[in-house]
């Protein structure tokens, strides 16, 4: 084939890939068509890669084939991780994507310097800066999620000043490079500083802020790919990067809204600081109950709302919860799940865990749907969720979470909370829900406790039969 024919084939394949990528995301909007979306994405990807391999400028395939093989060897296990490990896997894949962008950008720079136009150099600088900082920030996030690094926010005096100065320094060097693209000795600086910045950026971020941070890093990874598209003059990359970037951006907005915080507040105002001031609460009396009591109350309920949180994921209790769902549903109760947008460690985390446990997705309600139902609910069962149920967010102006949208668990007729102990949540805020007259505290491990409730219920069920 002549180079002209191949380049037409490549361009047309890329155009088809773009169409398939957009369809892929469109089909993802509903669970019934979502899997077609994955197929469309796969076809588009295969088409684009196959067409690229025809490119006449490729002089040798050895390294490409070897690298693709390595990619499969690394990628397949990452695609088969258990659902509980999905947040850290996602963070890791952002790191890989960002690394690829940073490396391609670096290669392009040294191939073309100093003959780089100011515009291309700007795109290159954005690509490399975003790629590098996203790489280390995502690795840090993955480390915190996998708990190889401490989940607690680590803060020190002048932290924000140090971080912002670093970023400003990187931007200044980038501007200098745009004006003088031949200054190759400065290029390593816009790789090194962002690498350090990404690392420092995630240090002060606690586990509960991870949904926002992961979404933000998703957006950065997309933007660096779009910048790469400008450098390489590839519209396919620009479109894919823009789609990923806007997806991450939308998710970050949803997440920060759900916590009533701004991006800057998540990135620069570590929540851990309020710990000391708010944690000193005098002991108030709570009512606690045994699995037998809980089973008796659930037996009498005709509508039950389960509120899962990160604690359910930690205790791996989702399969027990599903058994509880089954047994109560069989007894004729209406059982649903109320899912707060930031429950868990990434957007949609709880939905995936419950779907894995085989809970039908039409029983999983989002916050607005659930809040309409709470006043009619007999029993609200909170499993491992804390701050997202705290009524103080509605009325206590002094509370650090004041204004955060919450699940109106306190409006249910009876509230039961499974919790290890009365220790406050990540924000260090006492939850007044626990001290209400209609609240019963069920102290214990979520998995074990739900298991004993299920045993009680099935025993009493057999006794009646």
């Amino acid at each position, binding site marked *: 084939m002549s180079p002209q024919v191949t380049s037409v084939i490549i361009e047309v394949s890329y155009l088809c*890939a773009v169409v398939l990528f957009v369809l892929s995301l469109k089909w993802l909007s509903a*669970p019934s068509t979502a899997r077609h979306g994955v197929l469309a994405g*796969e076809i588009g990807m295969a088409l684009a890669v196959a067409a690229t391999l025809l*490119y006449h400028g490729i002089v040798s395939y050895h390294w490409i084939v070897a690298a693709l093989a390595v990619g499969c060897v*690394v990628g397949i296990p990452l695609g088969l991780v258990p659902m509980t490990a999905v947040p850290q896997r996602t963070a890791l894949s952002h790191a890989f994507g960002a690394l690829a962008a940073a490396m391609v950008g670096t290669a392009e720079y040294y191939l073309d310097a100093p003959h780089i136009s100011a515009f291309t150099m700007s795109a290159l600088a954005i690509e490399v800066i975003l790629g590098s900082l996203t790489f280390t920030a995502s690795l840090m996030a993955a480390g915190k999620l996998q708990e190889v690094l401490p989940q607690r926010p680590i803060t020190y005096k002048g932290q924000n000043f140090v971080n912002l100065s670093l970023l400003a320094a990187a931007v200044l060097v980038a501007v200098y490079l745009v004006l003088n693209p031949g200054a190759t000795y400065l290029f390593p600086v816009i790789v090194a500083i962002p690498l350090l910045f990404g690392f420092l950026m995630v240090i002060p971020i606690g586990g509960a802020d991870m949904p926002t941070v992961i979404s933000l890093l998703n957006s950065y990874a997309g933007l660096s790919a779009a910048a790469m598209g400008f450098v390489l003059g590839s519209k*396919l990359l620009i479109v894919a990067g823009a789609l990923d970037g806007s997806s991450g951006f939308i998710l970050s907005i949803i997440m920060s809204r759900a916590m009533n915080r701004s991006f800057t507040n998540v990135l620069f105002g570590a929540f851990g600081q309020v710990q000391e001031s708010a944690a000193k609460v005098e002991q108030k009396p709570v009512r606690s109950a045994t699995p037998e009591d809980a089973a008796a109350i659930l037996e009498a309920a005709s509508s039950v709302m389960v509120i899962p949180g990160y604690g359910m994921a930690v205790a791996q209790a989702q399969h027990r919860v599903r058994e509880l769902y089954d047994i109560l549903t069989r007894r004729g109760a209406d059982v649903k799940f109320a899912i707060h947008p930031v429950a868990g460690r990434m957007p949609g985390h709880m939905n995936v865990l419950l779907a894995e446990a085989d809970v039908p997705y039409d029983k999983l309600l989002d916050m607005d749907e659930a809040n309409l139902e709470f006043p009619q609910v007999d029993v609200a069962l909170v499993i491992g969720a804390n701050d997202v149920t705290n009524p103080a967010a509605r009325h206590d102006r002094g509370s650090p979470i004041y204004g955060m949208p919450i699940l109106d668990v306190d409006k249910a007729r009876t509230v039961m909370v499974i919790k290890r102990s009365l220790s406050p949540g990540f924000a260090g805020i006492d939850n007044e829900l626990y001290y209400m007259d209609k609240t019963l505290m069920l102290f214990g491990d979520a998995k074990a406790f739900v298991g004993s409730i299920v045993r009680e219920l099935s025993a009493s069920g057999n006794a009646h039969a």
Partner: protein
Amino acid sequence: MSDLMSNLYVLVLAGFLGFEVIRRVSPLLHTPLMSLTNALDAIAVVGAIVIAGEQRSTLATVLGTLAVAASASNVVGGFLITDRMLRMFRAGAKTKAS
């Protein structure tokens, strides 16, 4: 310059399109959404293949090859896990009947 402008048009339009399409994704599927966009974003593999294959300098070949491996793992892993997640989402009996 015209090339630059048309690329900017593409970026802006794709951004809007992405915003409209992704806004409609139910919160139920936000995790699969993130892993799918991540897999699609790994289309950066095509840029990396060109850099690795042209072999214009040793540095470029090494960096390009590493970038191919990194993006390819996102392609494979991203599609695989998205599909696994979506297979788990099933409707209840009532919805099936209606």
